[in-house]
């Protein structure tokens, strides 16, 4: 196995993990959202993230299998194996994606922070020298923009809404803020891939992201939280206690009945 392929497998798997875990989280709103239209919207957004995870995992599996060459003694893997048969420590999603859904304000605050980041990130990832990565990004960027329109609207509506909605979404931003710094950190794999123009240098995206977030929060009469604390570790497989709970639901069927298919 070549090193550059290892880095690329790590990279696309991590991006797939972000999407899968968040998609699974948002899907928890299915049948429980505040009203029907919102129920549909949340599950549609969840579907976009699950689809994105599948594209990244398919590519990770393809790269992994290509490295096996003609070695017949080792089984080929699929996107499903990557999703269903890894434990929490092997998941490399950043922590903000795995946090519980909280109340509706919390869900939309997180969505807004991630969508704003997603638009910046995917705009750069489209330029990746890797054709598959760039193709996935080209697909994702359109969805990110659409998601952002909606989550941005909700931040305005809740922030500049009633006293209770204002308080709830302000609390949500305060609670989430320390998890955003991890979005702009680079792993060793990402740094290595940067030299061949495959990955995105996220460290330079923060200014544009912060400007967008600040503008919306200001318009929503909300206060931008202070950078007082930060938690990271997701890309290294060090997670909050919440990831195990997501996986226990996500992976239940394959763990209880290995190899089961529809």
């Amino acid at each position, binding site marked *: 196995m070549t090193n550059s392929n290892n880095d690329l497998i790590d990279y696309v798997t991590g991006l797939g993990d972000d999407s899968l875990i968040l998609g699974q989280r948002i899907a928890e709103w299915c049948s429980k959202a505040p009203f029907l239209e919102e129920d*549909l*919207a949340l599950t*549609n957004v969840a*579907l976009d993230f699950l*689809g994105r995870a599948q*594209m990244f995992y398919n590519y990770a599996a393809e790269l992994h299998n290509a490295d096996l060459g003609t070695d017949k003694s080792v089984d080929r893997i699929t996107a499903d194996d990557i999703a269903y048969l890894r434990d929490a420590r092997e998941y490399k999603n950043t922590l903000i994606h795995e946090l519980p859904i909280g109340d509706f304000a919390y869900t939309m605050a997180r969505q807004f922070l991630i969508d704003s980041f997603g638009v910046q990130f995917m705009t750069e990832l489209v330029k990746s020298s890797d054709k598959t990565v760039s*193709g996935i990004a080209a*697909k994702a960027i359109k*969805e990110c923009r659409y998601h952002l329109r909606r989550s941005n*609207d909700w931040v305005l509506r809740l922030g500049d809404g009633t006293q209770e909605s204002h308080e709830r979404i302000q609390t949500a931003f305060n609670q989430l803020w320390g998890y955003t710094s991890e979005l702009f950190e680079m792993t060793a794999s990402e740094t290595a891939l940067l030299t061949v123009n495959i990955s995105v240098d996220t460290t330079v995206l923060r200014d544009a992201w912060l400007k967008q977030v600040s503008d919306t929060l200001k318009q929503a009469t909300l206060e931008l939280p202070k950078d007082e604390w930060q938690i990271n570790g997701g890309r290294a497989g060090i997670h909050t206690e919440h990831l195990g709970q997501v996986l226990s639901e996500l992976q239940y069927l394959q763990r209880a009945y290995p190899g089961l298919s529809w």
Partner: protein
Amino acid sequence: MNTPTPNLESDVDRLWSLLEQITDPEIPVISIRELGILRDIRLEGDTVAVVITPTYSGCPAMREIRQDISKLLSTAGFEKVLVETQLSPAWTTDWITPAGAKKLHDYGIAPPQPRGQANIRCPLCSSDNTKLISEFGSTACKALYQCNACLEPFDYFKCI
């Protein structure tokens, strides 16, 4: 592709009209060609390669479309069928043909309109006096609108 023999070319033509029969599982009035999902058909030896592209990343209809293609082609006598998914260039609503857009309209779904252009027109009473209810409708590719004139809710095929 090498210069095709006349026979091969007619086979590809035949395949295009054959696959015209395959409709979107969620919107059965419009074919996958009219939606711009069907991108290419190639004959490679005795294998038919069909290239499709998803509208949205998580579109659950893709799996069914893939199965429909394989099933139809095998019924038509093509034994080796390869359905490839192409991600790039990413699908856009611009690929929906004018005939396809009309079918959407007649089915009660407002076809995509370029952004910034007037209001979305109600496919039922043709009034431009409509409002957005939700950015997402019954499927990922649609938004939910309501007509202020006839008061009917309707789906709008989002422009992306």
